[in-house]
């Protein structure tokens, strides 16, 4: 459950990348470097519903901090997962709940990926993470 890129790194890189191709190339790179979820965790119980692509999520609480592992069969979604993990991973439940994902994705010009119609399940993924945090807060 390691983090591949820090939020600061991601923010900085996005600032440097002006056109969509470079930004997506970076998201794809993030997706490629996201650790794979072990196959035994890719079961129905861990699926985030509302996704056109498959997204799996597992979590555990360690020393008061929430650790998430997420995976998807779609590369761009894996890249978006890396950003979500950079923002919400390795934090206490209360810290998770305090993060404003809307404004982060707005800042990264990725806001429309959070729209419920996108079908990539990013919104459902964030909702699931917040639900878990709320239960443990």
């Amino acid at each position, binding site marked *: 459950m390691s983090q591949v890129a820090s939020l600061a790194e991601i923010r900085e890189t996005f600032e440097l990348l002006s056109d969509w191709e470079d930004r997506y190339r970076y998201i794809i790179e993030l997706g490629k470097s996201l650790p794979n979820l072990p196959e035994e965790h890719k079961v129905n119980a861990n699926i985030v519903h509302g996704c056109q692509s498959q997204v799996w999520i597992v979590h555990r609480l360690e020393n008061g901090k929430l650790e998430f592992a997420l995976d998807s*069969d779609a590369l761009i979604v894996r890249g978006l997962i890396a950003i979500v993990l950079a923002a919400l991973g390795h934090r206490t439940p209360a810290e998770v709940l305090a993060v404003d994902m809307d404004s982060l994705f707005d800042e990264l010009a990725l806001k429309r990926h959070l729209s419920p119609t996108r079908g*990539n399940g990013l919104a459902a993924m964030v909702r699931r993470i917040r639900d878990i945090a709320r239960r443990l807060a």
Partner: protein
Amino acid sequence: MSHATNITALRSDFPILAERVNGQPLTYLDSAATTQKPAAVIAAIADYYRHDNANVHRAAHALADRATAAFEEARRKVQKLLGAQRAHEIIFTRGTTESINLVAQSHGGHRLRAGDEILVTELEHHSNIVPWQLVAARKGAKVLAVRVTANGEIDLDDLDSKIGERTRIVAVGHASNALGTINPVDEIVRRAHDAGAVVLIDGAQATAHLDIDVAALDVDFYAISGHKAYGPTGIGALYGKESLLESMPPWQGGGEMIETVTIEHTTFNRLPFKFEAGTPHIAGAIGFGAAIDYLAAIDAQALANHEATLLRLVTDRLAQTEGVRLIGTARDKVSIVSFLLDGQHPHDVATLLDQQGVAVRSGHHCAMPLMQRLGIPGTVRASLGLYNSPADVDRLVRAVEKTRALLT
């Protein structure tokens, strides 16, 4: 009436095609999901609300007369579109899905017995599977599916082996939304009738592309959506043979569909109103009528040639594009092409195409049994309408090439 033969010139009838998305000119290749609407349809809907709006079949005032006349005129246009013999064989619905549910619940609910069989195919949209499962569960009937060959055609030998004396209903699409395959519906109707079954055809993907003649087909039910044929969303129709519709109980109850009501008992209105409970989508029906007029004003052969040329072009160009694998290579197809790019997820491909202004659909296309049959999670689907051009195909192919470079 003279018919438009210059199909290319028709593109300018569709105001939305001037939109830009993600800073790029729009290349709309998702017409199988919904077609764009010509200005004539948009105007017909606006004009109805500006000048004629009233509830239909009720009040004695002038506007109600105008609204009713326009609504019933729209029904006659649908009748003509489908080649039905009688206007009251046309029931307005919300669309193909509701039309199929109506038949499943009313006809199926009335006629099916435990052990009866409903035959669909692996090619079907969920809308032509799930309504049958619901009524089958209620009545103890069974849903069977005819196999599809690897290239996406219905296996008629398998149809013969599955059709039998228990088969009550055969429900099949005229054209596949996922692959574009045009099914041999005349042959299927003949074989189903030989076995004593009634046939419903899901015509959602046929309406904009194929000549439909329910009388010549001798089909029992035919379901369509307005929005797949340049009309508005929320309106569709069911054609049903008069004798069958007469024998079916009402499905939904409410206003419009009744003759007299006491607290104890209701007698039902005549066809088609028996099946049109509640205030109908009047503006939608009128807009649908305008779309039918729009299509009727186009030379049918010129339109067919235009779409066939585009389908050939997009198929050939994609087949020659590195990494592309075409899914569904039936001999007869409407202008839909499904494909995969290397081992990339269709959703990733569609996301990057969208960035380039190219609107396609990705996923299982509401045909999960078909995807399971083909052993793939889904496809990228480009579906073309009358407004598309070789330039659109070119933009798609270039965008696919760029997408491949980004993903690999």
